[in-house]
């Protein structure tokens, strides 16, 4: 599961959907792997506008990556700032979460991640 995925996932519990604390989910005991992928500037420029930057900053810090700037880079920034481009590429697309848990900040439910697959099936009492 690529780290970018975490920007689109939320707690599966219905009552959590309307709260702000259920996003982003918080990685716990995360085991990461790094896959070398050819850098694709156009893709990153087009992905940037759909990223929730505040959530990504949280995810980045919690996974032990360098703190991202408070404001997202603009498309022009990404064209010029090679270092920022490389950092985002490495975090969003090259890094995969293979093992660990994703924890909801609202209800505290922990979703297991095993062999790169997060399990969002709920125990029957939470459905």
């Amino acid at each position, binding site marked *: 599961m690529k780290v970018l995925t975490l920007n*689109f996932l939320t707690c599966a519990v219905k009552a959590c959907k309307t709260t702000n604390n259920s996003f982003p989910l918080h990685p716990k005991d995360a085991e990461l792997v790094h896959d070398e992928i050819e850098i694709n500037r156009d893709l990153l420029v087009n992905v940037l506008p759909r990223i929730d930057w505040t959530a990504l900053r949280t995810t980045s810090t919690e996974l032990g990556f360098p703190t991202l700037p408070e404001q997202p880079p603009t498309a022009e920034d990404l064209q010029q700032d090679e270092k920022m481009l490389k950092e985002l590429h490495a975090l969003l*697309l090259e890094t995969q979460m293979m093992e660990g848990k994703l924890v909801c900040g609202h209800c505290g439910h922990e979703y297991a991640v095993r*062999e790169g697959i*997060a399990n969002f099936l709920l125990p*029957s009492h939470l459905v």
Partner: protein
Amino acid sequence: MLPTPDTSHVPYQRVYEPAEDSFLLLDTLSSATETAYLARRFGSSIVAPLILEVGPGSGVVIAFLTANARTIFGTSDILTLGVDVNGFACAATEKTVSRAVVTENNSSSTKRQDEERETGTFLAAVQGDLTSPLRPGTIDMLVFNPPYVPTAELPAAAFAPSSSSTQTTTFRQDSHLLELSYAGGKDGMETTDRLIAALPIILSKRGCAYILLCAQNRPEEVKERVRRWSGGGVGEVWKAETVGTSGKQAGWEKLQIIRIWRETNV
């Protein structure tokens, strides 16, 4: 004809094997009318679309969309994702997509060097119930080949903790996983109805959904029902049309694919 992704590694005793319905989806999504529609909707966008397949099973459809992104969407800047209730299907999907992408990239590396990328970017296969793990309003295109066969009742829902991909399973557990992939309960629509009800929440403003139905699902009624949603938002019109069909049986189209989307007339 675009190549069909290889699924020879998929354990068919517990993951739905690509069949007529899967191939109808491939044919429809790569047809001249649908590629023109998708390219118009997403091809020149500066925001990469997020494509979700619900219940990818073997992964053949989402692998096809990812590996042939530029041909189908007019851009390779797409993100793809799968959610399946079956953990083995998630593992199978990841493998099918990565193999299809590698195959495509190897075959196009023999072409001209400066040729544009063909393949999109696959994010993950996630185990879950329909769209429940996803943030509202994030999905730009959703594809669903549902459990559409009418059955007396739905199989018991899958709950956590459920079979992980490393566990061994019994014959009964395997049968249950396969049943979840085809048994649709009343009119074959119990699961599909839940998915359709979630569309206004999960789809982005520019979102669309492709859903496969069989004749017993009463596709005409399904489309009518969606059209009646119109008026929910200001100037919002919901549309539903049949965009692919296969095999007539006793005068009825046995299988068909409907496209559901909203248009905002401001």
